């Protein structure tokens, strides 16, 4: 079964991160899971990681301190977009706020916009859409 090599979870809530990494682990979606608790940590990780740990799947929360999801997208678009064209980037949110959806659409790198929580059905959807060749 194909899977992602590295998944980067960007969320300030440790419980959410634990839940998501357990789910990903259990459903064998990715070899490695890395965690960043805000946008800034995620940028630092992307700048300093080795090639084999470069994420192919990023799950991004919106509400975070220091640097939130949209601010991270600004940086990502500028610094990392070119080298990471085949990275699947998903924005996860607690609300179906239409304003956020519109904002997310403005970024080409955002592949999907989903509501929390991440669950089995959504993971299977991701697998079907992006991992079956």
């Amino acid at each position, binding site marked *: 079964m194909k899977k992602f090599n590295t998944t980067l979870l960007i969320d300030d*809530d440790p*419980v959410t991160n634990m839940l998501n990494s357990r*789910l990903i682990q*259990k459903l064998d979606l990715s070899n490695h899971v890395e965690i960043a608790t805000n946008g800034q940590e995620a940028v630092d990780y992307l700048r300093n990681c080795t090639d084999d740990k470069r994420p192919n799947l990023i799950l991004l929360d919106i509400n975070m301190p220091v640097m939130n999801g949209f601010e991270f997208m600004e940086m990502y678009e500028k610094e990392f977009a070119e080298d990471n064209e085949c990275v699947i980037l998903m924005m996860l949110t*607690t609300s179906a706020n239409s*304003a956020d959806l519109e904002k997310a659409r403005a970024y080409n790198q955002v592949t999907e916009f989903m509501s929390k*929580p*991440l*669950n089995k059905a959504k993971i299977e959807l991701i697998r079907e859409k992006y991992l079956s060749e």
Partner: protein
Amino acid sequence: MSLWEQKRGVLLNKIVWYFLLIGIPTSITLWYMDAVPNEFAVYIGALALSYIGLLILNSKGHFTITALYIVFAGDLATCSTPILLGPDTNAQFLLLLIAGLPFLLFHKNWGKRRLLMALMVFPMWVAVEWYCHSYEPMVILEPWVIEVIGYFYGAVVIGFSIYIFYHFTVQNERYAKKIKEQRNLLDDKNKRLEQFSYMATHDLKTPIANIEGFFELLGMDLEDPNQEVQESLDGIAKSISQAKSTIHDLIGVIKMVSLVEQVEEVALEEVMKGVSDGLSLQIEEHQVHIDVDFTDCPSINFGKVGTRSILQNLVSNAIKYRSPDRKPHIQIRSETNDQQVILSVSDNGLGIDMDTDGKKLFGMFKRIHTNAEGSGMGLYVIKSMVEDRGGRIEVNSELGKGSKFSVILPRIIIS
């Protein structure tokens, strides 16, 4: 008193004062000038005094009488002046002041009557011109007096013309600017409200989302749960679902209850169409017959979103609480008198026992009949909105027969 009526009252007052200010000094001047028969001065004086009577009528709110008097008596008086003094005094041009007044003084629902009143001036003009060129003026004045009066009336006509243009351009610009400012303020307020409800519920939604997630993980880890464990799992699943739905409804309520809208003239027919489109599935499914009549009062002074919310809630309730014994029939009416506007939604559904359940009806999360879905928030929300604007909701209902919900709003809603 609507905004238009207020403005008209002010305008009528200004006009009456204007004519008083012309009439009284003119008659005093003529009286002292001795060049003119006293009867003429008396005539002008009487006209001026009648305008004082008009001021009094106007201040008492008898706008239509005042307006009609100004138009008709004004036309006649203006026509009589050139007949009395001769066309060289430019008195016939005073008709310029009067001709367009019907459009200012009468509401647009007077329709073509306003145009007819204005057009009346044309035959009057023709008659006056013919008379003046066929006969001598009734009052022979010395040439210098005629000249002075000619300049005076010329100045009056020019001055009035400038004033009318001013009134319609500068005043309208100021008014439009004020409306825009108000709208911006409201937009800001609503944006802040949206942010607030988002932030307030985010910290509630996150742990619930996590519970849901871990619950699913737990389900995957539990091999072959026995019946008791399964019941616990089902209980948790149901509770999670309830919590999510309550939060969802709470967000809706926060928004609706705190929504501050621009008060405008909202066309009921249009709003109702949107509401029935939105409910079209249920309407067709349950064969609901909706009878709408807004002819007595086609629009109300309220907010657009609020009006929609009221109609939506009442109609969807009427459908929800229909009787299984008969075809659902909903009657929607709007009525008005001088003080109030009444919007009513009547149905032939299950009805409500007002003695036992009357008080609970508008409470939060309260539902009287248990066979329907929904959060029980709808009536609470619309009651808040209506009462905030100085109105109230009345319920007439008979168990087993049906219910009638009446939303009563005062006509005076000044934003």
